[in-house]
């Protein structure tokens, strides 16, 4: 039974954690893709920016959360979402709008977004230094150990406090996004514009508003994803290049321009990563007595070492581009 607990801790929980983070990130990327028609490479740095804002606010008011019984970082998240949304709109105004007005190819916008990536990275590193910092400034990270009601399960299932916040916030964000896209006027206009920009414009939808709203949603979601990631581990300013690949892989797996697909894709990539680095020998060990003698299991049966984790999203990306470039859910943009 201990092996099963180990499996739950190392695959189910950590897979859902990275899956949720990738999912929220990929939704932002896919929304931008469906409205603006380019791959926004600065998204991972918007995530870092959101987490950095939370870090700044938490350092400024370390005791604010204690009165409400939540970690200060979680309390500061809405404020950081607002700031990141404002940043996203500002970036669009300064950098992308003039390029769009010139009528450049989408790939020029991609290069522009790489420039924005470097600008954000430089700014964040300039102010935060290059080391990692915990978002739990004054609070203590609670760790819950749930003992399983089975015989022989001595090791408990371990969940940390930020992981619980992560699951709750992910569900809230996904439901809110679903309601927004399906029920509100703006959300419907957004979907219309993603389907057919010319027709949407002809039927009186203000495209500038839609673009701004898209950036606000993407910025807010990026702030959530970055903060949750930094809560779970630590805040590091140089995460972006390692986040970009899984997030884009998730967006493409789900079908670009397809928010629900991006959520599914995020979990696919997250679980694939944890399953690939999981040492399968642990699960096979209980059966080692019943295995034939010639079959000697090596002690490390992981598919890839942890240091090669980044290979997994790339492999998924290549596989999906080869066999099903529209993604699992038939995205619109190829």
């Amino acid at each position, binding site marked *: 039974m201990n092996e099963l607990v180990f499996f739950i801790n190392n695959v189910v929980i950590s897979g859902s954690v990275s899956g949720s983070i990738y999912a929220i990130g990929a939704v932002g990327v896919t929304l931008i893709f469906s409205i603006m028609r380019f791959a926004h*490479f600065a998204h991972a740095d918007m995530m870092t920016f959101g987490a950095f804002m939370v870090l700044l606010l938490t350092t400024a008011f370390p005791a604010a959360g204690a009165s409400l019984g939540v970690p200060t970082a979680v309390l500061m998240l809405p404020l950081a979402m607002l700031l990141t949304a404002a940043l996203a709109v500002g970036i669009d105004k300064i950098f992308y709008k003039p390029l769009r007005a010139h009528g450049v190819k989408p*790939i020029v916008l991609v290069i522009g977004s790489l420039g924005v990536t*470097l600008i954000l990275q430089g700014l964040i590193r300039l102010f935060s230094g*290059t080391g990692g910092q915990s978002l739990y400034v004054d609070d203590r990270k609670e760790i819950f150990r749930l003992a399983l009601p089975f015989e022989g399960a001595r090791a408990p299932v371990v969940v940390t406090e930020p992981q619980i916040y992560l699951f709750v916030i992910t569900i809230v964000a996904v439901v809110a996004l679903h309601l927004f896209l399906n029920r509100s006027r703006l959300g419907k206009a957004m979907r219309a514009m993603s389907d057919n920009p010319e027709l949407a414009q002809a039927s009186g939808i203000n495209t500038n508003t839609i673009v701004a709203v898209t950036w606000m949603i993407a910025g807010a979601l990026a702030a959530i994803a970055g903060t949750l990631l930094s809560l779970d581990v630590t805040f590091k300013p140089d995460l972006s290049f390692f986040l970009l690949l899984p997030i884009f892989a998730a967006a493409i797996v789900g079908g670009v321009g397809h928010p629900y697909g991006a959520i599914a894709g995020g979990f696919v990539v997250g679980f694939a990563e944890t399953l690939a680095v999981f040492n399968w020998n642990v699960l096979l060990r209980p059966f080692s007595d019943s295995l034939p003698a010639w079959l000697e299991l090596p002690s490390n049966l992981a598919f890839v070492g942890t240091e090669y984790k980044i290979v997994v999203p790339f492999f998924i990306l290549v596989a999906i581009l080869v066999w099903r470039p529209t993604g699992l859910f038939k995205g619109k943009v190829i």
Partner: protein
Amino acid sequence: MNNSEKTRNPAYTPQDATSVRRFPLRELLLFGVLLVAILAVYAIMGAAYSTRMLVEAACYAILALGLTIQWGYAGQFNAGVMGFVALGGFCAMFFSVPVNDAFWGTALPGEFGRVLLYGAAAIVVIVGASKLDRLGVPKPLRTLIAVVLSLVLYLVVISQLREVTDAIESQAGFVGGLGLPPWIGWIVGGALAGGVGYFIGHICLGLRSDYLAIATLGIAEIIKAFLKNSDWLTRGTATVSPLPWPTPGPAELGFTLSRAIYLSFTAVIIAVIFFLLNRAYNAPWGRMIRAIRDNEVSAAAMGKDINKRRLEIFVLGCILMGLGGGILGTFNSLFDPQGYLPLNHTFLVLVMVILGGPGNNLGTIFGAVAVYIIWIMSEPLALFLMQLAVAFGEGAFGWDAPGNMDSRALQARVLVIGLLITMVLRFAPKGLLPENIKSHS
């Protein structure tokens, strides 16, 4: 690309076509300024340092030529130059470092060869299993068999490989080199980079151009992770040095002279590449490439095989990047996988190309040398400015500066490169020396 008319890059509109051969005033002026800058660096920093800077700039010029083929000639954006450079550097190291007898003298090469044979056999078995449907096996069953078989065989081979590489690491340190002249390594490095480029291009070039950027960004990180963690092959973070030069080294001739010889060697290579590229650019092949870049639909209507031409261009660019990476690695005389950074080896090259003039080889070389000089000089400048700011802050407001000011000042260069990219795209999309578009009216 249904709306290619609307999204066409204004940099390439035929309105600015020039039909008369004009006096190259702009080129002369820019290169004159560049010459003055180089002479100033020589006067301030000394000959050995400045020659070294010029050699590195020349290596970057080869990388930039590779990128200008991809971006300037064909409009493909490669965001993973670093990976191809690292591959070139690895090949230069692997071929030129002396033979390691602690590895070759033991049974380890045989063991390693056995694992490679297992790997080849596993691939044959899996390919065979994926063709089972021709023997009448139902397709879903065939897919299941192929997937399960490939997972199991992969695990078998990879665990065997881990055993052998661990043994190599503990008994011999690392595989060592082949003891051949470095230029063989450069050529193989170019070929290897071209092979990786073919793999990526084959998958991505038929799809949206964004996918190529994502995939190249990913493959660059993967190549770096592989080189960094394969201690048995590259010594990983322990780094390999010195790498022998094809020309007489500093120990025989002193720094300045040996570097000058290396520089002339590199200059000859650049001249050859430049000549061949210009021939290709003006040949029917070059016209076809530009036609595809400027209007894909009409080029396809003319019966051009767009995907094949794109693949050619992409692979050609990657080969040049691998070659340049090899020459750069040999010159540094040190193979350090951690020294390959996206900023130094991808974005710096990108700035060189878009600032110098995408599609214009002369402009690209100008951009490479100019940007590299600015880049090298910006390090002391950034530190100086930062210290000035700190001194001002302390004097005026009693501000207590953080201790790691030096590393933070270097981060400012990230910011400058990012600003440069966005500014150039917005205000000078054609670069300083724009592509010279001829019209035949």
